[in-house]
Structure formats: C-alpha cells, structure tokens
C-alpha cells in the first residue's frame, strides 16, 4: 500500500490552506526530512516535510490549489519496491474517508478536531455577515452613535485593524513605540505587528529577549520618562511574569505621586483560551486587571472596536491593559474608512437590539452570544446584546438601561465564573437594578476548572451557544 500524504494542519486553528508549490515531482525519491511542498495558511507559508522514505508515486492535488481541506490526500508515496499506481480507495483530490470510518473509538475527523474551541460557526467564519449593527436578521438594527452616516465600511481582520491602529498612532506621534518578543523581525508571533518594522525601523519597533518582567518595567519607566510605549505580550499568560509592574508600577504611579507622575503605556496581546493549548496558556485576565483601580482595561470583540479603542488607548494618559483574542485575529469585520477612527473608552455598544432579554458579554463571548441570539430569534425570543468593550471603567449605565426594558440579564463570559466580570454585573444589577429584575441575573461562563488539553474536555470547559440558549430560556421562563 502506498503511503497517503495528507494535507497537514500547520497550526492549531488551520482548517484549510493553499497548496502553493510542489518541490518534488512524481518519481522523485524522498527521505525523511526532505521538503515536499510549500503550503500557505492565513498566517504564513510553511514547508511540508517528508516523514517516510519512498518514491513520490502520484501527486493528487496540483500546486496552486486553494482551500485544500486539512486531511485531504495530496500525494502518494510508494515504499521501496512498491507498485506506484494510486490506491483505488482514494479519488483525485478527495478527502480520505478511510480513516474516519474505522471503528467506534475513532477521534473526531481532523476538521472537527481543529475547530477553534469557543467559536460557534455563524460568527467564526470570515464569510460571516457583517457586524449585526448594520441590520441583518429579524431584529431592528441598533444604531451605533460612533459612526457617522454614509461612512464607507471596509472588511478588515481584527489583526489588521490592530496593526492599523498602531501604525496610525505611530505616524502621528514620535513618542509611540512598540516593544515585545518577536514583534519586529518575525512580524509578531501572531502577525499583529506585521509591517511595522519596515515602516518605522528598529528605533521604534523593538524585539526584546524573553524577559517579560524586565521589559514591562523598562516600558513603564519609559512612559514615566515621557514616551508612549506599546508593550506587546506574546500572550497575556506571560504577562503574569510582569504583573507586578503592570499593577504596582504602572497602575499606581499617578495616585501615589499625587497626580504628578504619569504612566501612559499600553500593555496589549492575546488573552483568553486559544485552541488546545491547555492550562498554562488558556486564561482570561479581564477580571484580574479590571479589579485594579488605576488601570484602564479594554477587551474588544470586533475589528472596528479594536481599532478605535486601541487608538484611544495609545492616546490615553493612563496605563491601559488591552486584551485581544487569538481566535478572533483572523476574523473579518466592517471597519469604517475614516482618517481618524477613535472610540470613547468606557462605553459599551449595543450589538443587537431586542426586548426579551439582555445578554451582556465582551470579547469572544459576544460571538457566542450572537450565535445564541440567532437561534433564540427562531424561537421568538429577541435578545439584546451588549458588548461591554471596556471592562474598567464599566459602562453600568448601558447595562441598567437595557435591563429596564428587558427585565432579564444573562452574562456570557469566556472565563472562570468566580470573581468574574459576570459576578460584577450581577452585583451591579442587584444593587442598582433590583426593581427592574423579573428573574435572577444568570452567569454563563467557562467551567470552574483549569483548561484541560483533551479535545472533548476542552469543549466541555468552554462557554458555547447552547449553554447561553439554556440560560436565556430559564430566565424567560420558557
């Protein structure tokens, strides 16, 4: 039997890719380690190496083919002394079903295993409808006061929006610079700083060694000294090394100095669970930082919000913790084509209007809430969705105003339940909205466990639309 070479998954979230180039041809002998092909993902071009020895018997997917699904058989390798005719099992360019049918203990097919964990399909795909603000589906569109009518909208990934925000602010203000691990030459571990080194040079786009505590302190000191640093953490899990400077040095300077000493710095990077990266790499720090007076904490969902709020964060005179989400980086949203799109810090956004229940969320949880709302609408429940966008200061007025109309609140949070943003919202509703409540405020969060690695356990640990739907029905007594 020839060995089937399958389209590899080259990153935790890859589902398909482009077979850019074959570096071998039929009949070539290959051995372990030889580079067979170049494969393009949304993030990068990668080399695909041979594992087995043998001869390339047949190339099934020609180079230049787009959207080749992970797991598709792309070529056949014949082992020494084998017949090189293709296996009858496999048709040209078809994904191999052979493996999936074998036995009941089989794991999910590769496509499933690679699905980004917390993202329900409707909002996850790049092909998803534009931000529901501009009216889609059954409910009336909520007006976003921040976009002037008639503005041209450009589909932009979250990744690009963040980069554009930094680039625009760097063009406008020489005090702004970026530093962090792999931000310059590598173009960012998640490619968020792509192109910045080229435009602004090594004086302003600076690769650091792996020393979070050190460079967070250096950044904080530079801010005290009059600069406006953007410190990127490869992920916020690693900012725990540096949390002392974020809280004790940056967060308290203004207060302790009686307002004399400023610390205008932005700490940014991906936060929350990614996909299958287990306990030490899957945590939501929103509630941690949001508990600290002296910090501003921003945690956007859409690209437009990310851009407008990152620009505001860079301009702020206060230290800002800016929490992004890796699973959202590749998602596209409509971003207004304005020269200077800046949003107010501390203001929530109504993402979807409805009168039956208020769903409060932020970051990737908004996507989960949107997916749930669509399903709920089919059953006649119109949910209003509020994206907090800023976690500190919290826009409690927006939550309470919506509560006054819907009389029910469900909070959706991709993070732990205990001492969470959800807990905070519950408490605000109790203290200030008690008379408006027709049902207990309910939290839908991740399970109260460290993130497990196993695919099935990870799925169980995370918030999803089904859990939201259940909670909404419960508070609606349906």
């Amino acid at each position, binding site marked *: 039997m020839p060995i089937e070479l399958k*389209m*590899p*998954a*080259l*990153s*935790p979230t*890859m589902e398909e890719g482009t077979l850019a180039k074959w570096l071998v041809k039929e009949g070539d002998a290959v051995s*372990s*380690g030889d*580079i067979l092909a170049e494969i393009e*993902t949304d*993030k*990068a*071009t*990668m*080399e695909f*190496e041979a*594992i087995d020895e043998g001869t390339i018997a047949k190339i099934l997917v020609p180079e230049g083919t787009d959207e080749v699904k*992970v*797991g598709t058989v792309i070529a056949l390798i014949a082992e020494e002394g084998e017949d090189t005719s293709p296996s009858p099992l496999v048709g040209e360019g078809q994904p191999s079903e052979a*493996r999936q049918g074998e036995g009941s*203990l*089989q*794991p999910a*097919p*590769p*496509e*499933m*295993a*690679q699905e980004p964990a917390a993202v329900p399909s409707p909002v996850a795909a790049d092909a998803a409808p534009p931000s529901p603000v501009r009216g889609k589906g059954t409910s009336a569109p909520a007006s976003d006061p921040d976009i002037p009518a008639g503005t041209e909208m450009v589909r932009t990934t979250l990744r690009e929006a963040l980069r554009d925000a930094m680039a625009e602010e760097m063009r406008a203000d020489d005090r702004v610079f970026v530093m962090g*691990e*792999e931000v310059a*030459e*590598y173009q960012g*571990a998640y490619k968020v700083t792509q192109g910045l080194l080229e435009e602004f040079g090594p004086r302003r786009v600076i690769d650091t*060694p*792996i*020393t979070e*505590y050190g460079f967070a302190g250096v950044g904080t000191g530079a801010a005290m000294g009059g600069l406006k640093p953007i410190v990127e953490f490869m992920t916020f899990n*690693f900012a*725990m*090394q540096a949390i002392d400077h974020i809280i004790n040095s940056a967060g308290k300077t203004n207060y302790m100095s009686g307002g004399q000493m400023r610390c205008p710095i932005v700490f940014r990077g991906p936060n929350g669970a*990614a996909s*299958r*990266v*287990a*306990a*030490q*790499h899957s945590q939501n720090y929103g509630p941690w930082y949001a508990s600290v007076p002296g910090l501003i904490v921003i945690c956007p969902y859409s690209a437009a919000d990310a851009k407008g709020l990152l620009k505001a964060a860079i301009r702020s005179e206060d230290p800002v913790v800016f929490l992004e989400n890796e699973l959202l980086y590749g998602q596209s949203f409509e971003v207004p084509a304005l020269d200077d799109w800046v949003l107010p810090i501390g203001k929530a956004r109504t993402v979807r209007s409805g009168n039956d229940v208020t769903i409060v969320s932020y970051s990737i949880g908004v996507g989960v809430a949107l997916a749930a709302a669509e399903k709920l609408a089919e059953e006649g429940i119109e949910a209003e969705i509020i994206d907090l966008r800023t976690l500190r200061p919290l826009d409690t007025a927006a939550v309470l105003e919506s509560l006054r109309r819907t009389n029910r609140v469900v909070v959706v949070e991709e993070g732990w339940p205990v001492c969470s943003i959800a807990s905070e919202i519950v408490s605000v509703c109790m203290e200030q909205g008690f008379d408006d409540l027709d049902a207990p405020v309910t939290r839908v969060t991740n*399970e109260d*466990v*460290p993130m*497990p*690695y*196993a*695919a*099935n*356990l990870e799925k*169980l*640990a995370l918030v999803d639309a089904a859990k939201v739907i259940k909670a909404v029905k419960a508070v609606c007594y349906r």
Partner: protein
Amino acid sequence: MARAATSKPAAPKPAPAKPPPRKSATPALARPAEPTRYKASKDQLLEFYRQMLLIRRFEEKAGQLYGLGLIGGFCHLYIGQEAVAVGLQSALDGDKDSVITGYRDHGHMLAYGLDPKTIMAELTGRAAGIARGKGGSMHMFSVEHRFYGGHGIVGAQVPLGTGLAFAHKYRKDGGVCLAYFGDGAANQGQVYEAFNMASLWKLPIIYVIENNHYAMGTSVHRSSAEDQLCRRGNSFRIPGLQIDGMDVLAVRGAAEVALEWVRGGKGPILLEFKTYRYRGHSMSDPAKYRSREEVQSVRDKSDPIEAVKRELEKAEVSEEAMKATDKEIKSIVAEAADFAEQSPEPDPAELYTDILVEGR
C-alpha cells in the same frame, strides 16, 4: 564650560594614597576538570543509538499526527537535539535523581525510558495519556520516575528545579536535579535569582542550557548580550562548561564531570550544550528567520544520530544489528501511534477531578 567654583578654596592635594593590596573577599572560582568524550562499550553505544532513534522517529510521527489533526495546540519537537537528553539522562541514577524541563519535553520523557504509548496518548489527549489527557504536549509528568514536567512558561522550570535540588539536600537523599532550559529562557530574570540561591546554599543541581541557537524566531545573538551562555553563572560562582550537544559521547562525558562535581557537595554547575532544532519552533512556525541551507548543513554535517552510527561502525557493530534496531523502533512508534489513536478520550467527569487534592 568652566565648573562653578565651590565655596572652599581647594586645599593642597595630599599625595594619592597607594591602594591597599587587592585581596579578593572570596576565594578564586574553582572549576571542574575538562570533560572528555565518554568511552562507551558496544552495548552502550547501541543503546544510545536506540534511544536517540526512538526520539527521532517518535517526534516525526508526532508531527505527522499533528498534521492529521490528532494532536492539537502547541507541539514542540525535539528533532536534532536527541544527543543532549540521551547523553545526560543515561548518566543519572534513576533511583534518586530528578529531571525537570520546559514544553519541549517529549525527548526527555523518552530518554527516561517512559512508555512511548502513554506519551503519544497524552499528545492525542486520551485517557491513557501520562497526564490522563489533561496536560498535552507541553505538560507531562511522571512523579514515579522523578520527572517533574513539562512546563509551559519559559524559565519557570529553573527555580522549580532549584527547589527540587533544595529538597534533595534537605532530605539528604543523595539525589541531583537536572534542570533543562533553552537559550531564550536563559534571559529570564528568575533564572538568576535561582542561580544565586543555588550557589549560596550549595544545592545539588545541574543547570542545562540547550542552546539550539534560536528562541522562536530570535537567534541567540540577537537576544543575549553575553552569548557564551556557559558564562552566565560566573557572577554567582557557578562554573560553566560549553559542550558539543550533537555528540552523545561528549554529552555523556560532561554529565560524568558534572555529576561528580555536584555529588561531591560543591554546589551547582552549568552546562551549555550547542545543539540545533531541525524543525520550526512549534508546528505553526514558518521558520523564515533562517535559511534552508543552514538547516540542511547542520543535518549533513553534524547530525547526532549519524554521528553515533559512525561510532557504531568504528566499534564494528554490524549493519544488521543497526537495521534490527531501526526495525524495532519503527514498530514501537507505530504501536504507540495506534494506541494513541485508538484509546478513548477522557471521561467527561474528568473535567472536575484533580483540581484540588482534598476536594472543595
């Protein structure tokens, strides 16, 4: 510009006092003997070959399973660095010594003789995995074998290993801790806090820097003001040695010297192994920071497995013996992969177990 005069007129300068004869407060830094290449018997050589080949083939298979979506998240392969783990761990006393490392941990587990099946099953996130599917590639442990992980935060294992060494000394169990970390990790501040304590308290620890020349996309020269990492212990009076990490016999030779030093109660020692990772940092690294030629030239000129093969030939080990080993390894790895694919996922109830030892 003239300096403003101070109020007092300058007094006539006294003749400069002769500096007192320099006397260092602490004695000169003692150093171990220069290590020599280990003289392995035929059987030992064949065993080194077997273990290194097992790591290589296991990692290749893991890469393949990742490509099929059976392994998820981050997966860091050890291909190219096999001689380091095998050379060092073959010298340990399995009954008392301990090992700790970072996320690039499959090789260290295998070099410890742990069952490839349970390691591969951990990679696929199955109940039969060594961490019951909860840890994955980066977080593997075997307390039974005193293998303390498997840590995802760069540098964290260095003070943790120092703590393991503290426990060895405290209990007087005669054990030594081997703490591995990378060239990139060598820049974390906590490494030096640990060095200082280990040296002050003469803790039995061997610090092992696996200098594979890159930390993700940053070459050691771009990240380190002192890129001769073996010198990094000097300010803490920890002697350092720089060794060819592609030569398993050189590695084992260094292990002998280091173990003698540490077991002799002289405190910590630092070993820097020059090695190389053939693959990207993790599966999703396009590796554009180095040329294909650079990688190929290391493979062609200094592959650690080819090097042992040459030693085996010199020792007149027959081609058949090597081929038999190749075959054996191939079947072990295939079996591990089948096991890892076939065994069931953890029971859903496992989500809530092991959070605390004593419940809530």
